[in-house]
């Protein structure tokens, strides 16, 4: 299978959080983190999200959770079950959320003096998704797992 790749917008915050501060191990990790943050905030950038940087599906090869997040976010965005299987579409949608998420990260941590590690951790911990959805989600998960005999 030809390698799936997309272009994404790699802003200054990538250099700051990966190269300068060393908080994220790789651009891939930060790309997924930014995308999830964008998704969590309901922010998606559909027009100017493509930049010069490339993201390859093979970078997700041994990261099951990254792949799961890509599939779920793509599906939740398109509401099309085919999105669960379309890696290119998943990457493309992730790039849209990552573009908006990177801007949020830039706004929140770009001007922080010193390491923004603590602020990042605090924000992750304080994040609470809508409670109704959560309950629904949990019961659905349990039910699904039982039904599938897993």
């Amino acid at each position: 299978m030809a390698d799936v790749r997309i272009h994404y917008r790699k802003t200054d915050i990538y250099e700051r959080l990966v190269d300068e501060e060393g908080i994220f191990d790789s651009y891939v990790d930060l790309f997924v983190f930014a995308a999830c943050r964008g998704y969590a905030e309901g922010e998606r950038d559909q027009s100017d999200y493509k930049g010069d940087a490339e993201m390859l599906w093979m970078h997700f090869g041994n990261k099951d959770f990254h792949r799961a997040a890509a599939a779920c976010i793509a599906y939740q965005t398109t509401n099309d079950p085919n999105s669960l299987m379309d890696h290119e579409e998943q990457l493309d949608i992730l790039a849209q959320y990552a573009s908006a998420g990177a801007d949020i990260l830039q706004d929140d941590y770009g001007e922080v003096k010193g390491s923004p590690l603590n602020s990042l951790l605090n924000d992750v911990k304080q994040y609470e998704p809508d409670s109704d959805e959560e309950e629904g989600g949990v019961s659905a998960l349990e039910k699904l797992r039982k039904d599938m005999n897993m």
Partner: protein
Amino acid sequence: MILKSLEARNFRQFRDIELEFSTDSDRNVTVIHGQNGSGKTTLMNAFLWGLYEDLRSLENQDQLVNQGAFLETDPGESVQIEVVLEFEHDGRHHTVTRRHTVQKRSEDDQIGQVIDEELTVEYLNEQGEVVEPNTELRYIRQIIPRDLSDLFFFDGEYINDLSGIDNQGEIREAIRKMMGLTILDRSTDHLEWVEKQFREELQNAGGAELQELINKQESKEEEQQQIEQKLEDKKRKKARIQEEINDISAVLEQLDETAELEEKRQNLQDRISDLEDHKQSINSKLEAQLSKNGFLTYAMPAFKETAEDLDELREAGEIPSELSNEFVDDLLESGECICGRELVEGTPHYEEVKGYKSTVNADGLDQTAIKLISHFTQIESATEEFKKDTDELIEERERVDAKINDLRGDVDDIEVKIEELTDDFDDYADETGIDWDEQDIQSPSDLQAARQEKQEEKSSVVKEIGKLEDKIEILDEEIEDLQEEIDAAESEKREANLARKRMQTAKAVRQDMEETYEGFQHTVRERANKRVSETFEDVITSDYEARITDDFGLKIYDPNYDQALPVNKSRGERQVASLSFIGSLVDIARERYEAEEDYKFFSGGIYPIVMDSPFGSLDNQHRRDVSETIPQLANQVIVLATDSQWEGPVKESMLDRIGRQFYLEYEQHGGAHGTPMTTVREETVAAKEVQ
């Protein structure tokens, strides 16, 4: 002696002036002030010239005659320089007139030649008759000995000499003069001369053998004297080295304490550094957690909603509820069920799993959904773990931070202590005058080496002292033996015997006088010491104490260190001590004069203090202190001061004590033919403003 008035004619820039001094006992200060160069020092010299024909600290001393008067004089003609001093002494009114007649030798002669000198002293006796003593000069010197003039007519320079760090010479000399001990000094010298005369007589009276013995004895005595001199030098050297050793020891003590604290501080710093490394490793772990699983929390709604949707899809039949054949095959091949059980072919469990295989062909959605669902559990637990692990790491980091803060507090405390010790040390080093650079001292070990060196030096001096003392003892015995031989040789000669007795008597008297002389010096030193320390204490607001040491040094002590301060560190205090010293001597002289007891050498007297610019090196506080004290020590004080010294604290402090006040008005071209001239203008004495 109370000064009444001074007149000066053709004396330097004074053409014709007259000043009447305050004789009021309450307002006993007369102030004469003017700008720099207006003639204060010249005026001071008018006193000295009138009394002793002395001139002091004056440039071009040959050019005594007023330039204006001299220019108006034709060659061959002469000008009279005249100083008239009136004063009260022993209840009598005295007038001292000194007059020099100076002849101009040529048109451009500016100095002239003294062709006549005249000194007259007159006083009014009890009957109101004018009496002229026969020996004017001696009469004046009886009233105020010339030797003492330094003490009563002084300038800033003399104060500097007195306040010098090696001032023993000046202080001893001042005490000697003041107490009339110079008479004893001279008597001792004279007796030595008498002794020598008798010895010569004895030599002449004795034969050759006796002569030889006497020569031997003389040479031994001379040798002994030289050794005694050396011994004194060595003893002084030993004392000085001991003082240096004490200084170094005190500094080392401070350094030991500092080094101990430094080590503690270093240990704490090491611990802080370890904890900071630990904190860094916690942060690295937190970063790894955030990078790896931080996104899961944000993605969780997507996971859960997808799970819901997949469930709905399954219920709608869009995803088969059975496991796909491929998935079951994978499980069987891997030999492990998703519940963790081992799958071995032929076992019931293996067969049960195999039974799940469906005949329905699974499509891609089916497989993807199954993979996702299998990951959801892991994702959930990974998310929980992320929260738990990061919470624990953050708590641990907080504990480490608290510990670091505690340790930093401890380090701060130690640093404050070190700083205090360093400040103390710097103060101490300043006050003891130890010059580390000069002694090439870079570290405590250098200091220890320096102390060791001093101790060795001291040991060697002590040995030398022992040797010298042995030599003196041997010489004593030899001289005694020689004396016995001399006694035996001359016993038959009555003449020689008489000469010997006389010589011995002269020697005994001389020795007695020397002892008396030493004793007097120390008695007076003790009295002066008491006065100086009392006066100094009154004047100086700090804790410092002034003392006249056993070896006649006027020293200032810091009671906190019991260490004399070097002159450059406390010039103000030292100058105040010097002024206190003079004031004390004047006070002692007055006390002796008023006492009923008849003193042997010096009966004291009432003396004025005439001070020329004594405030130069003092700061405002010390000027104020001195100005308040000096008028209380002498019956009469005449202050010559520049305007800048006079205005401010000196004037404010003396205001209630001023009886008369004069201003010296100097004009560069105000005299005849545009020559410099100073006139005197009496000023109204200002009353102290009521606060």
